[in-house]
């Protein structure tokens, strides 16, 4: 499903965030990406959605080399990938409901169908009662769950979560991991980054560890 081959990423200014990273993720697999702050976790996830491009090596998603994808093809790649951003990227000029609606509007879903899907996604993350609120009125954990709802509403094949449990207390973190597990169970491919080892107690999940841009 996802395949990195000798990927190097150097940011303008010369900093090398990823150095020769290679790995494969099978379809339907759930994977943790760990490493210290600044190790290159966000960079790695951005390469998958072609938000950043590699300087050398190849990033394949569904056998498509996304590192060289043309601008016009980007939207269709990204519709297949749900992303939970480290900085949330919620829109505070609209309601919780409308935030989750946006991906469906972008894909051109009709009104009634999208309403149903938005409520289903909000229900899954436990925010159905807050659909009319402004996201600014939500707590940190609720905002995080809103991000998840927006990422899954479109039922993407791949879900990327960048430090989704970032600065939440353990109860919240566990709730969120449970949501990911349920998503994993219905066959999605998940890549979840974290610098917080404490949420990784549950065994059986493969783990990639980055250290200063090198895969351990």
């Amino acid at each position, binding site marked *: 499903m996802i395949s990195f081959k000798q990927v190097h990423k150097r940011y303008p200014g010369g900093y090398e965030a990823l150095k020769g990273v290679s790995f494969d993720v099978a379809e339907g697999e759930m994977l943790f990406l760990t490493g210290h702050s600044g190790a290159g976790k966000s960079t790695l996830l951005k390469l998958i959605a072609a938000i950043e491009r590699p300087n050398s090596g190849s990033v394949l998603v569904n056998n498509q080399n996304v590192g060289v994808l043309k601008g016009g093809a980007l*939207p269709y*790649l*990204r*519709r297949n990938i749900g*992303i939970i951003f480290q900085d949330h990227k919620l829109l505070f000029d609209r309601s919780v409901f409308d935030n989750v609606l946006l991906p469906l509007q972008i894909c051109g879903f009709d009104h009634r169908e999208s309403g149903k899907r938005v409520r289903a996604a909000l229900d899954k993350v436990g925010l159905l009662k807050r659909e009319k609120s402004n996201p600014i009125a939500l707590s940190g954990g609720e905002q995080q769950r809103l991000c998840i709802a927006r990422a899954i509403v479109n039922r993407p094949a791949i879900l990327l979560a960048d430090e989704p449990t970032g600065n939440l207390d353990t109860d919240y973190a566990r709730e969120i991991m449970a949501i990911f597990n349920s998503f994993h169970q219905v066959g999605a491919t998940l890549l979840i980054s974290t610098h917080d080892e404490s949420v990784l107690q549950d065994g059986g999940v493969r783990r990639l560890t980055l250290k200063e841009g090198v895969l351990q």
Partner: protein
Amino acid sequence: MTRAFALHLGVLRAVLRRMFASRLAGFLNILAIGIALSLPAGMYLLLQNAQGLVAQFSGTPQISLFLEMNAKAEDVDRLHKQLAQHPAVAGVEFVTRAQALEQLKQSTGLSDLIGGLQQNPLPDAFVVHPKPGDAQALDMLRGELAKLPRISEAQLDSAWAYKLEALLRFGRMGVLILASLLSLALIAVTFNTIRLQILTQRDEIEVAKLIGATDGFIRRPFLYFGAAQGLLGGIMAWLIVTASLLLLNGQLGALAQLYASRFVLHPLSLGDSLSLLLFSVYLGWLGAWLSVARHLSQIEPR
């Protein structure tokens, strides 16, 4: 098809909501566009009306040749033949001084005054119908005929119409220049409005790009906004022109009574009104398109 239509309708609804959310600013923009467009449209309308006047009054040009008071019958016969044979003349009539006086009585309603005259002050005259030609040729013919013996004066009846027509051509050029400049202003106003919108919606555009929006999807609301603003500006211009026309016609009514004539300004025709609206929609759309092309590419999500 209907689904695509519903989607576009949804975008349009969102755009209008946004436009009316900032009520005063939106209205001022529309007013500015309306005033800018109403100037050339109003001038065009005045020219159209003047053009109608010219067509109504000029008809085919005539040259009136007034004979000297002491011209004799044989002079008249000789001149009549000479004129009839002239290559640039299509026809000629002789109007005796008595006929001329009678016409004057009837056409002016001053019969009492004229009836009181001791003697007829009018000369005999020829009315010459020239063959079709331009203003210059007519003027040359007039000069030539004026030099004939026993002719005291030659008048080209529609000279003013030709002069007015030249003036109208000048005016039309003026309207064209004004319309071009103000169209640029309209494009600039829209360009700037859309630029501000793009800046304030930077976050939304960024997020939309990140979750798979095509450029078309992101562009669409801005283009619709530009077109809708242009349309409302066009409607505003139409209202300004039409309201001014009604006011002017009120004044013309009073004037017309003094001059015992009926003259009203005609409003913009249906075709001209539609052209005005289409043109303003197009300009708004173009301004938005230019702005979007310039500013959207600068927003790349990280």
